[in-house]
């Protein structure tokens, strides 16, 4: 039907906002002005300023089409005069509040339908809409704000707009605008509105608006996701593990892994792990590792160390243990030649990784090798085989060479050369290849070089001696080699231990829960199931069963599943202190590891003591605080009691004095002074008694339904002259609250007295009430100087002023007591900013059941 129009359809531009007051109308009018200045014919069809002066000023000199006035059920309403706008035929029409429902009897039920007509007529329209009015978001908005939106409009209307511009503002800024009174006047704010403008609500609405818009930008995402995206945020977080070798490329890897983690849509945890080889032959640089650890922690990740024989396996075990989804590894640093002989850690990891993604990251250190190949290596199987190989190849080669040169060399040189070969074999392969080589060499020498040649006989005794020496030297050298290798292994082991211990010390110093961190580190390092620090109960006497009596021990700290409850229950037990025992479950440790575990145990005892001390300090702090409070309370109470007492006594003693005769008016004034002071004293004493009853828990509540319209007037009467100016506006059909009549009165007296104290003389406080979600909220609003937010909670502590400094500006017992009483009645008392300046106390009380007056 639209296609057969002759005119081109107008364009719709929508300013979308998350909440009222973000500045949609303002932005729309700004746009209108811009267009008008460029010579476009702009009229305002309908603009709602809500009495906001900045917005009203923005209307400026724009041409406004007069609204149509309509009568509905005896009330007058104004609506956009659609026909007038159509007849005016501007190029652009400004029409506020697209979701508005027209007064019954209008041509269209909804304003967006009016706008469609304008568009069809070829008029461009500038409009505004709040996110909560979108039909698809209706239920989400209701969940967030607890308010059912009656005015909704189909998403398609907004979706089909040529431009949708988000008018965005942070919730905090919006609340500040609200506090300045730029959005609503103070008397407009009721329970529902107050709840609507909570930071949490506004943030959720803002998120909705941003998501909805993102959705429009990317049409691939369907509406369903827009509705449910808030919930989808809380999926399990992914974990990215980055493997560190201790080499300089670690930093590149960490940063790369952090980026991988950051790019994961739901965010990811970063875990760095360094695998110490259990043979200790790692050759890592501890300072590099320490630096990388700091880097990881500064990027929000955690640092871990595990011990394992095979790096790839240990790494994958760790990754599976922490439920990691991704591993970041450096590409091999070994040269090409080394890569031919064995698969690198990277390749092995990829092969074994299963469902875990492995990222092999290139870096500057690639192909540089770790460090010069070490000369002394342990006598592994491979080395022994090489020894045998060298013997098998070297001896024949040497024999052939010497046979060719037989005429130039003496027997002594031959033997020395063979001895050299045997030593070489010993250096490579240790004892057995060396002995084998020595025996073989002696036979070869015997057969080929000693006379008689080509026979296994030795004619000269001297040659026999040489052969024996030959064997002895070979054995001795290979033993030295073996010993050196063992020492090397021990040294490497010790350095691995030292590394672990350094980590232990570090973890105690860092962190808020040093004990748990320490135990976790121990569990990780040795691959245990659980590690538990047990503390013996002091009264248990020594006995044979003590080690297996669960009642004698209590858990001081534990990590891992299923902790051992007795020292006998674990695989390894190490004494940490006189009455502390560290119990490890999961596997039996090698004797050499025990030394490290003992160091752990000592540290654990220390960490436990440290935690206990911290706890004690933490409990001492509130005590000191309470002590300070009590002193302040005493000083303030004594001042507050003394001051009215002093005026009363001064007045009375002067009246009693017979030195002078006061005239009638002076006498009257003195009597009034005494009377007022005694009233004040009475109020204070009543409050003090209430407070002590409240604190002693003997308040004696008797809750009954009370209408606020019955509760408020007597309070104002009781407060007399000063409360006369207080404005009260209670809605006609407010539900009764469930409260104790006497206590409610005390609360109201204190709130009103407080408001009066801060009100400027020309702007008395006001009292209003409204209802929201089963609660009735009473607002006592003053227009005084207000209170900075950081002092809001302080205001509710009793006597939070400095001694006797200030009789007026300070807050005494009143608010503390009021909050206490409100909470005793199941309600709350919270402060809010009065829009435009001042403080509003919001007293929420449960509405009486079944009272729907």
């Amino acid at each position, binding site marked *: 039907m639209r296609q057969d129009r002759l005119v081109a359809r107008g364009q719709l531009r929508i300013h979308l906002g998350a909440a009222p007051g973000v500045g949609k109308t303002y932005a729309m009018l700004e746009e209108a002005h811009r267009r008008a200045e460029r010579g476009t014919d702009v009229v305002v069809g309908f603009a709602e300023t809500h009495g906001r002066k900045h917005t009203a000023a923005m209307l400026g000199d724009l041409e406004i089409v007069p609204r149509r006035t309509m009568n509905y059920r005896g009330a007058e309403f104004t609506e956009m005069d659609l026909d007038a706008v159509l007849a005016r035929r501007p190029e652009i029409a400004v029409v506020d509040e697209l979701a508005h429902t027209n007064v019954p009897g209008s041509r269209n039920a909804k304003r967006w339908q009016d706008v469609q007509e304008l568009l069809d007529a070829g008029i461009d329209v500038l409009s505004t809409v709040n996110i909560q009015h979108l039909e698809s978001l209706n239920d989400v908005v209701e969940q967030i704000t607890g308010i059912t939106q009656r005015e909704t409009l189909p998403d398609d209307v907004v979706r089909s707009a040529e431009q949708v511009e988000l008018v965005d503002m942070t919730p905090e800024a919006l609340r500040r605008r609200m506090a300045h009174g730029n959005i609503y006047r103070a008397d407009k704010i009721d329970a529902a509105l107050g709840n609507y403008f909570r930071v949490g609500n506004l943030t959720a609405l803002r998120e909705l608006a941003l998501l909805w818009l993102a959705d429009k930008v990317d049409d691939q995402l369907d509406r369903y996701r827009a509705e449910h995206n808030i919930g989808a945020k809380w999926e399990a977080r992914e974990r990215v593990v980055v493997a560190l070798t201790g080499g300089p490329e670690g930093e590149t890897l960490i940063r790369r892994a952090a980026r991988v983690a950051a790019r994961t849509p739901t965010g990811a945890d970063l875990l760095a792990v360094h695998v110490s080889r259990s043979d200790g032959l790692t050759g890592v640089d501890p300072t590099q590792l320490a630096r990388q650890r700091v880097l990881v922690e500064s990027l929000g990740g955690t640092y871990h160390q595990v011990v394992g024989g095979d790096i790839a396996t240990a790494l994958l075990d760790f990754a599976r243990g922490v439920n990691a989804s991704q591993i970041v590894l450096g590409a091999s640093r070994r040269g090409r030649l080394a890569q031919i002989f064995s698969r690198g850690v990277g390749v092995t990891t990829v092969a074994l990784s299963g469902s875990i993604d492995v990222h092999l990251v290139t870096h500057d250190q690639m192909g540089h090798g770790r460090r010069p190949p070490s000369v002394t290596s342990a006598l592994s199987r491979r080395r022994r085989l090489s020894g045998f190989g060298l013997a098998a190849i070297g001896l024949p080669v040497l024999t052939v060479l010497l046979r060719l040169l037989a005429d130039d060399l003496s027997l002594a040189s031959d033997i020395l050369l063979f001895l050299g070969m045997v030593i070489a074999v010993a250096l490579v392969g240790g004892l057995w290849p060396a002995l084998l080589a020595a025996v073989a060499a002696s036979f070869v020498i015997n057969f080929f070089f000693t006379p008689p040649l080509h026979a296994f006989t030795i004619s000269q005794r001297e040659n026999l001696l040489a052969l024996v020496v030959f064997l002895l030297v070979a054995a001795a050298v290979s033993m030295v080699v073996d010993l050196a290798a063992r020492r090397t292994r021990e040294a490497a082991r010790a350095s691995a231990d030292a590394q672990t211990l350094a980590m232990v010390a570090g973890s105690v110093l860092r962190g808020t829960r040093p004990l748990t961190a320490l135990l976790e580190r121990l569990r990780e390092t040795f691959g245990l199931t659980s590690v538990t620090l047990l503390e013996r109960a002091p009264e248990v006497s020594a006995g044979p069963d003590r080690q297996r009596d669960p009642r004698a021990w209590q858990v001081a700290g534990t990590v891992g599943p299923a902790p051992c409850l007795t020292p006998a229950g674990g695989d390894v037990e190490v004494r940490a202190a006189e009455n502390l025992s560290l119990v490890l479950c999961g596997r039996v440790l090698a004797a050499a590891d025990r030394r490290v575990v003992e160091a752990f145990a000592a540290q654990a005892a220390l960490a436990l003591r440290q935690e206990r001390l911290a706890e004690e300090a933490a409990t001492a702090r509130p005590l000191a605080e309470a002590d300070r409070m009590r002193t302040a309370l005493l000083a303030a109470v004594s001042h507050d009691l003394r001051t*009215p007492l002093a005026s009363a*006594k*001064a007045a009375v003693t002067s009246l009693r004095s017979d*030195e002078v005769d006061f005239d009638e008016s*002076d006498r009257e*004034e003195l009597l009034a*002074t005494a009377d007022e002071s005694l009233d004040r004293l009475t109020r204070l004493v009543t409050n003090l008694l209430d407070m002590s009853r409240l604190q002693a828990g003997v308040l004696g509540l008797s809750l009954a339904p009370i209408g606020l319209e019955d509760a408020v007037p007597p309070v104002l009467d009781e407060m007399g002259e000063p409360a006369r100016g207080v404005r009260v506006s209670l809605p006609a059909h407010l539900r009764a609250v469930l409260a104790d009549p006497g206590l409610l009165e005390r609360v109201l007296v204190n709130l009103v007295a407080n408001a009066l104290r801060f009100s400027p003389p020309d702007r008395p406080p006001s009292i209003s009430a409204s209802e929201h979600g089963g609660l009735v909220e009473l607002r006592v609003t003053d227009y005084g100087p207000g209170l900075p937010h950081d002092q809001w909670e302080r205001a509710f502590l009793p006597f939070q002023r400095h001694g*006797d*400094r200030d*009789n007026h500006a300070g807050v005494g017992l009143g608010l503390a007591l009021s909050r206490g009483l409100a909470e005793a009645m199941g309600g709350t008392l919270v402060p809010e900013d009065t829009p435009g300046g001042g403080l509003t106390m919001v007293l929420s009380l449960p509405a009486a059941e079944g009272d729907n007056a």
Partner: protein
Amino acid sequence: MTRVLVVDDEPQILRALRINLRARRYEVAVAADGADALRLAASQPPDLVVLDLGLPDMDGVDVIRGLRGWTNIPIIVLSGRAGSQDKVLALDAGADDYVTKPFGVDELLARVRAVTRRTAGAGETVATVTVGRFTVDLAARTVRSDDGREVRLTPTEWHLLEILIRNPGRLVSQRQLLHDVWGPQYQSETNYLRQYMAQLRRKLEDDPARPRHLLTEPGMGYRFQPE
């Protein structure tokens, strides 16, 4: 007419004091905070200041210091702070007397009279003063009982008695007495004071356990109360 400046943030107290002082023919000015008090004292210097220590804008002790910067007018502190530390602080800052709330109007007025008398009669020299049944001759430095017997006083006792007698009715702080009698380096040796005051009372009071003329203001100082 003696002009009194009353400084207190409590309107009821201001009202009661204003009525009382006016009825006794004092000229009264009132101030509700420290800044106001200092301004009023500077523009129309009063003959006496009655000052509350707990003021909304500044501490009363600072008001005392501010006044003492340029004037010697007597200051009577009127405060709800009953701790001796507070009193000593105020007296050391230069207050002449200290009355704790709640107070009897008569007592306050007596103190007002005492400090104004001192300042009014500062130039005069009093020859003899009666302390109970003893007559103290300040010129001849002798003390005689009504039966003509002479009472012997040590030089320190004399010095102490003379200071108190020359300030009749006025509170003299421990610190001032120590300073004037023993010297500036003595500040906290209040046990000396106790000892000498006890000796004076034994010599001059009828019932040293219940002195009527040489009074102790606990924690603050001593006062000579004439008949």
